[in-house]
């Protein structure tokens, strides 16, 4: 047997549970304890498209060094689901540990001799302590957290405090949960060799960072961005964004005196209606958004084109997942880039914002509404399941109270009375952005008829070619203006001069950071450019020109960002080396480092990591 793993503040714990068994709150508790001990940790839910019965996993990567990306592999497994026992057992690293419910004896063939097996009779203890079947189930979860507290040397005061916080407002539940936790802990202390080789030790590496889901952060961004209308249709993994907006609004947007709501949220009959309502509201001067995922984007295509041509502000949060129909709705990908960037028929191009973590979900979530109003066009905020539905450690949110909403070029009754000329699609300022009026502004001036493309600069019906071309080239001018307004890419240079570059974006960030560190350790140096928006800033073309080879790291099969770089910046495809991860799990540093090393032909490295 290999030597049992000995690691402090640097390992991966994974829980295997049955969906609907109440394990989520115990697992969340486990993740929080680690953060409260000052150790960076990243939890990830791995769940099926199911409400009850199917397997679900919760993985926590603990990393004092601060690596927040998925690592791959498991050092301590807590297999609470008999259905997945074999697969869970097989996933443990040699020298790793397994904490299991030993109530029912299992044949030796169910175990491995290269891992340390730790049995706690959880069911037996629960059955002895509780009579209610639901309690027997729920307390079992807290009990294994208690056993882990003993095995990993957690601070018991922190555990107690967090249980009290978790059940705040439900005081009756605090004591029994603490008691159950102690039951598990005491049993482990008495019967098992505590602590094991994996240990937690208090450090001060979390700082002022917060732990929040990207969907909730984006929804809060929408509140701070001044959104008043939300229309949505339930779809995993985006539903929790609209739900979070609902709860944020209940907290922040209810008029204190009248109890009336300064927002309207409609669960629509489908995605077509959702985007239709958003466009209607945007046309009428309210800030409006929808949240959806890939299949929803497909359904919205026609309307998105209408909003592009009719120049109506709209914000679309796309929480990306795998494929259509039943396909991979609970797995993460960055696979909607092309369908969003060029959504609809006719010649259309759209602005995409690419947040890397919940902090940017909040920032871009708010900024998207200013951009939509300023540019009078749909703005996509491209999240994915990995950042959307998992809690992630990130910088605290900040807001400048002096900031005001930018409502863009809107003519008021006063402007119209002063005799300012109004043509809905007239490029007065040369930036491609025309002025608009809200319906109901003026009795005799500023009214116009909104259509798709058959119009002139004054919104009059025409099917004439020159008018069409004039409009289409103006829209390109507007897209050029967008390049100056969207979040700029962030370049980071390697410690040593290098001709190799890498481009990445979105939730790939933490894995990329770690991969760069590992590659540098092996002597492979890369300058990087993290894209934060489409259309691309001129720095993107310059970055590609300045390197012999640029790796484009993304989480889809077809290299969608690479395609955008080729088609929008005219970059030689031979220069852009794709690094593609698309099995539905979050991209890992190991994958990035190995793939780049192999493509860069760094043989010693390849051997070292395999």
């Amino acid at each position: 047997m290999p030597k049992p793993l000995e690691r402090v503040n640097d390992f991966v714990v994974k829980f295997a549970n049955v969906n609907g068994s109440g394990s989520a709150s115990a697992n969340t508790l486990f993740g929080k304890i680690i953060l409260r001990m000052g150790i960076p940790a990243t939890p990830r839910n791995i769940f099926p498209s199911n409400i009850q019965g199917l397997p679900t996993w919760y993985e926590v990567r603990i990393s004092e060094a601060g690596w927040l990306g998925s690592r791959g592999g498991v050092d301590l497994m807590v297999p609470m689901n008999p259905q997945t026992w074999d697969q869970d057992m097989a996933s443990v690293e040699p020298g790793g540990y397994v904490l299991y419910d030993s109530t029912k004896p299992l044949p030796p063939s169910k175990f491995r001799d290269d891992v340390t097996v730790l049995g706690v009779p959880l069911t037996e203890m629960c059955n002895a302590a509780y009579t209610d079947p639901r309690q027997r189930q729920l307390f079992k979860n807290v009990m294994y957290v208690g056993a882990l507290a003993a095995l990993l040397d957690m601070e018991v005061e922190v555990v107690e405090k967090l249980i009290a916080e978790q059940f705040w407002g439900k005081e009756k539940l605090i004591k029994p949960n603490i008691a159950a936790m102690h039951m598990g802990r005491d049993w482990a202390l008495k019967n098992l060799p505590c602590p094991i080789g994996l240990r937690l030790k208090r450090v001060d590496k979390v700082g002022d960072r917060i732990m929040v889901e990207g969907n909730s952060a984006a929804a809060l961004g929408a509140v701070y961005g001044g959104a008043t209308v939300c229309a949505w249709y339930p779809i995993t993994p985006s539903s929790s964004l609209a739900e979070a907006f609902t709860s944020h609004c209940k907290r922040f947007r209810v008029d204190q005196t009248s109890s009336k709501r300064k927002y309207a949220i409609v669960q629509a009959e489908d995605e077509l209606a959702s985007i239709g309502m958003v466009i209607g509201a945007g046309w009428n001067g309210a800030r409006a958004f929808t949240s959806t995922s890939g299949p929803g984007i497909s359904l919205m295509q026609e309307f998105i084109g209408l909003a592009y041509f009719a120049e109506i502000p709209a914000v679309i949060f796309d929480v990306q997942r795998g494929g259509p129909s039943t396909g991979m709705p609970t797995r993460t990908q960055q696979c909607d880039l092309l369908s969003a960037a060029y959504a609809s028929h006719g010649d259309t191009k759209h602005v995409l914002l690419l947040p890397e973590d919940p902090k940017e979900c909040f920032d871009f979530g708010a900024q998207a509404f200013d951009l939509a109003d300023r540019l009078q066009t749909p703005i996509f905020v491209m999240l994915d399941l990995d950042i959307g539905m998992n809690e992630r450690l990130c910088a605290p949110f900040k807001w400048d109270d002096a900031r005001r909403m930018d409502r863009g070029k809107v003519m008021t009754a006063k402007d119209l009375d002063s005799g300012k000329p109004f043509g809905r699609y007239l490029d007065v300022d040369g930036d491609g952005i025309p002025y608009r009026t809200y319906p109901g502004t003026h009795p005799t001036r500023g009214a116009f008829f909104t259509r798709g493309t058959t119009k002139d600069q004054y919104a009059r019906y025409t099917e004439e070619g020159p008018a069409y071309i004039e409009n289409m080239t103006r829209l390109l001018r507007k897209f050029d203006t967008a390049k100056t307004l969207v979040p700029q890419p962030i370049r980071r240079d390697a410690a040593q001069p290098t001709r190799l570059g890498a481009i990445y974006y979105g939730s790939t960030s933490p894995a990329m950071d770690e991969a760069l560190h590992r590659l540098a350790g092996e002597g492979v140096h890369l300058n990087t450019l993290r894209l934060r928006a489409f259309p691309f800033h001129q720095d993107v073309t310059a970055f590609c020109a300045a390197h012999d080879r640029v790796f484009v790291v993304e989480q889809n099969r077809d290299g969608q960002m690479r395609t955008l770089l080729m088609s929008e910046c005219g970059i030689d495809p031979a220069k852009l080396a794709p690094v593609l991860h698309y099995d539905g799990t979050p991209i890992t540093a190991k994958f990035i480092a190995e793939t780049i090393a192999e493509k860069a032909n760094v043989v010693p490295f390849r051997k070292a990591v395999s």
Partner: protein
Amino acid sequence: MSYLPKPKFRHPGLQKNKLGYTRRDYEGSVSTLCAGCGHDSISAAIIQACYELDLEPHRLAKLSGIGCSSKTPTYFLGQSHGFNSVHGRMPSVLTGANLANRDLIYLGVSGDGDSASIGLGQFAHAIRRGVDMLYVVENNGVYGLTKGQFSATADAGSKSKWGADNNDSPIDMVALALQLGATYVARSFSGDKQQLVPLIKGALGHRGAAFIDCISPCVAFNNHAGSTKSFDYVREHNEAVNALDYMPVRSEIKADYAEGALEQVTQHDGSVLNLYKLARDYDVHDRIAAMTYLQKKNAKGEIATGLLYVDSSPKDLHAHLQTVEGPLNLLGDADLIPGAAALEKFNAARR
């Protein structure tokens, strides 16, 4: 009809309404529909209704989908904002517009292809949400703009211009609207302006989901023998349940009516609908009875018209959502942005 610009000349003696507007101030550009199209009569009725209501044109927003009917908003209320959206999706755009500013009047114009075929879902859901609007379906049973295909409201057994039989069951928009909870439901005929104008006026004053199914013969593709949406057929089979007279406020009734023949319905905005009953036992407030009555008439091949159902104290979507009194699009930073201190609290709770 014509691409000629509309002459600006107006007769100096044209009557003006309380706002000082003539009827011509409620017109739009010249219609490009076929000469004699029923839809133009409906546009004229809308113009007449708005003029008579002293409605400020800019306080009304007109929205439509795609099709002949959906082109018509260009031909009336030139001083109103208009939105020619995508096929079958006007209801969602109108719903969103209404959410943004509850103070405007919303007029949705659609056709039977736009609302009963591609847009049936959106029609149904806008009605069941109680969006405060007037939703007019200009119903001719045929696709005009694509040249004569059957629509979903074409009666089973009716014939196309080229002799093809329609075998599919028709969708009855009035029955759907009643079932889905519209609070003002009427059916009319584009050839009966006297009936249509007051129905539109009543609907524009209604503060809930108002629906008018207006049969509007297509002179190019559905006005032949064998059609059940032709001028001749509708005139022959039209049976009005009541005649409506719209009063902006309650006032004395001058004419004499037989006992029980007149009913006054006061709407939320104070306007009064004087209903002269033609079918004596028809109760305009009884939704279930109305559905039964209409189905019976329908089975006999008769077309019941008039105000078919009204709820004089409707609730609309804003009431359901408990939104603030004023338009959401006027709320400013102080109303909407919680600020830095609230954000710091949010952060603190997540450490």
